[in-house]
């Protein structure tokens, strides 16, 4: 990534106002197994929150609840002050929103997946303009121009007409980030974005994520085990284990003097 051009996505830092993400007492169960046992988390605008924790602890499930890829059983999730996935019916009960309404809400929330999930039957350019053109209705030419800028910004400008399979994992993940940014999201969710990468490719993806935080002050919720990234970029580090938030602290405190023994135990395994 030779001197990439500066990022130019929206997300200007604004102080005050409603939090971008507000999850309140979120419960989620799969049949008899309760995976989320009342999680509350607030993320302010331009804040970067890293979620860590042992596998099976519920952190990825929680992230997927934030854009309603998973239903929740109780509690509520608001993004920019709007309920996600549900609407309040008479008597204050929550009722699931229509497919169309949920789709509109999700368009405001960017998500990056562990396995990239680029569309293999589309070129890189087509991957990026797919949602702007078919969800937002932006003219194709305009979307292409924007996509070219974004590809330049994430450092893979010369690959626009290639199919995803021709790209390295690191390049695919950076394209996936560009694809999410093309929708000008209010918040970006990262679900273990570097876990499927060869070790030598992790750095380039983390670098792109750092630039999102620093240059455009993107609000970010990242499930990751990258301690360096968390220390350097995150405003808060959160440990989710057993379906609850065990620790929520600034990274300096989280990594050097965690208060909860389960955090200490977890850190002793990954540090």
């Amino acid at each position, binding site marked *: 990534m030779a001197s990439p051009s500066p990022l130019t996505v929206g997300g200007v830092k604004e102080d005050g106002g409603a939090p971008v993400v507000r999850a309140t007492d979120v419960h989620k169960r799969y049949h008899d197994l309760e995976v989320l046992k009342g999680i509350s988390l607030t993320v302010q605008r331009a804040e970067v929150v890293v979620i860590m924790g042992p596998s099976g602890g519920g952190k990825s499930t929680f992230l997927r609840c934030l854009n309603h890829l998973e239903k929740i059983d109780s509690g509520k999730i608001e993004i920019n002050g709007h309920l996600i996935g549900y609407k309040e019916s008479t008597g204050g009960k929550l009722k699931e929103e229509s497919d169309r309404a949920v789709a509109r809400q999700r368009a405001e929330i960017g998500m990056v*997946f562990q*396995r990239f999930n680029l*569309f293999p039957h589309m070129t890189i350019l087509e991957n990026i303009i797919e949602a702007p053109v078919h969800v937002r209705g932006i003219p194709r030419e305009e979307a292409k121009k924007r996509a070219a800028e974004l590809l330049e910004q994430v450092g893979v400008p010369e690959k626009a007409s290639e199919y995803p399979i021709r790209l390295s994992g690191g390049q695919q993940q950076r394209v996936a980030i560009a694809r999410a940014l093309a929708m000008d999201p209010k918040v970006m969710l990262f679900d273990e974005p570097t876990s499927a990468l060869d070790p030598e490719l992790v750095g380039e993806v983390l670098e792109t994520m750092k630039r999102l935080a620093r240059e455009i002050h993107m609000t970010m919720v990242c499930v990751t085990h990258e301690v360096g990234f968390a220390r350097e970029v995150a405003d808060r580090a959160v440990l989710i284990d057993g379906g609850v938030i065990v620790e929520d602290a600034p990274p300096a405190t989280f990594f050097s003097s965690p208060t909860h023994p389960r955090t200490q135990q977890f850190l002793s395994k990954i540090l």
Partner: protein
Amino acid sequence: MTMGLLLAAVDQCATAPPSGFSFPCFQSILLSDVWFGPALTVVIITVVSQTAGVILGLPLALGKLSRNPLVRAPVNFYLWIFRGTPLVLQLIFVYDGTAQLTGNSPLLFFLNREMLISGAITLALNEAAYMAEIIRSGLQAVDPGQADAAKALGMTRWQTLRRIILPQAMRVVVPPTTNEYINMSKNTSLLLFIAVHELMQEAASFYSSNLRYFESLAVAAIYYLAITSALTFVQRRIEDRFGERQEQRAAVKPGFLRRAFIGAGTE
């Protein structure tokens, strides 16, 4: 002319020794021009009924994958009926069975009076049940992460299906579907049972009048082989193109049939 050749065929076969293969008889049956119509019928019914089966198979596949049991139950019932009974039973059942049931209601004119249309419809309904399974397995072969990514970008369920899932499912669905076209061309022979004028019936009309079973059926076999060979050639063209694209993991896009035959455009 037609009558002349038919009579010639009858003559050559009538004068042949009663046992053994008679080449003059075989030749006269082969060169008879009565085969063209039935052969065309086989080709047309194959294309029409199989294509209708593919189209009907998609909603059945989606119904089978539905989370709603009220959708799944009738679909499973349909598949159970059409996959669980012989095709020849279904053909006679739809053509004659429904006629009896409704006392030849004029509402069922096409099912009860037009054996060609009745047969084509039954073949399509039967094939839809098999295509449903083929399409279902194609849909399930697509990585669920693809639907996650599409939904996360704000696509509706329908957009996700049409733009992301279906094009990728096609990679799995197309090869068995081309096989189904070949199978369908042979299944049309069962239309003999509802007196559709197709190749098998033509063969039967020869051997029932001249008792030259071997020669009559050999000629019909040649016509079937010509049709299935042509379909196999088409199948190869589609799968060759398709295989190339598969290496790039680029799935079938609209217009792939056109590109397969006219040549790939630059993309």
